[in-house]
């Protein structure tokens, strides 16, 4: 199952690259540097979804104390951190030629950095306690608090004056990207979503195997 998901995810990512470099047109104002968007934006969407999974699984864990819920939250948090890291790094690389700076402490960038630090903390909390059950409980609380920050990240571009542009989708009015650009964004999102599902499934299986090996 995991192997097939990995294969489909690889095909999805390759299709995304074809769309980004072969089908999507050169953007008029930014030129070809705008092609960074096809990895930058889907990476943050995937990270948001992973953190949403952490939120739901953490509530379930605190409610039921089921190990499966904790493994789901742990796996999704790790994968979310990887994808958010990709989003932040590619954003900095995109920022330099377009804004003239790698980083600026505006509301969007600062709020996304806060979420990144919270979820890195989530992973560290697990290592810092001797009792795994207590670590899982603390991590669940951190995961819920971290995920509650995501609406703040999304709406930060409306609530404060920022250098970052408003969202492309999930905003009032029509989407900012349409035609081939919108399609390339969608295909890349599906590719990275499949890849994240593969990573989460694999990490979940490893966490379960680790638990069984130590039990």
């Amino acid at each position, binding site marked *: 199952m995991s192997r097939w998901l990995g294969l489909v995810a690889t095909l999805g990512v390759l299709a995304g690259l074809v769309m980004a470099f072969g089908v999507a047109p050169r953007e008029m104002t930014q*030129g070809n*540097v705008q092609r960074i968007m096809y*990895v930058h934006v889907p990476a943050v969407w995937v990270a948001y979804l992973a953190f949403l999974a952490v939120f739901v699984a953490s509530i379930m864990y605190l409610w039921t104390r089921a190990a499966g819920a904790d493994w789901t939250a742990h796996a999704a948090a790790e994968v979310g951190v990887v994808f958010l*890291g990709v989003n932040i790094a590619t954003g900095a690389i995109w920022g330099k030629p377009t804004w003239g700076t790698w980083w600026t402490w505006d509301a969007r960038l600062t709020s996304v950095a806060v979420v990144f630090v919270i979820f890195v903390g989530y992973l560290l909390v697990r290592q810092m306690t001797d009792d795994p059950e207590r670590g899982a409980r603390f991590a669940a609380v951190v995961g819920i608090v971290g995920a509650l920050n995501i609406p703040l990240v999304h709406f930060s571009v409306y609530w404060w004056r920022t250098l970052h542009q408003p969202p492309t989708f999930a905003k009032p009015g029509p989407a900012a990207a349409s035609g081939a650009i919108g399609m390339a964004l969608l295909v890349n999102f599906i590719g990275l979503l499949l890849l994240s599902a593969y*990573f989460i499934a694999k990490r979940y299986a*490893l966490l379960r195997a680790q638990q069984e090996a130590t039990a």
Partner: protein
Amino acid sequence: MTSDHWGFVAAAYAVAVLALGGYWRRLVHLERTLKTPTLRAARRRGAAR
């Protein structure tokens, strides 16, 4: 006409490949370290028979 900055595009995609590929390698490594003791134990059991 804007400059295309292909170097920045290549750097962004390279960073993404390194991060995602690196994470995949970490999972494969974890899988191997988990499987190795089991394989060794199975071989030992087989040799004892």
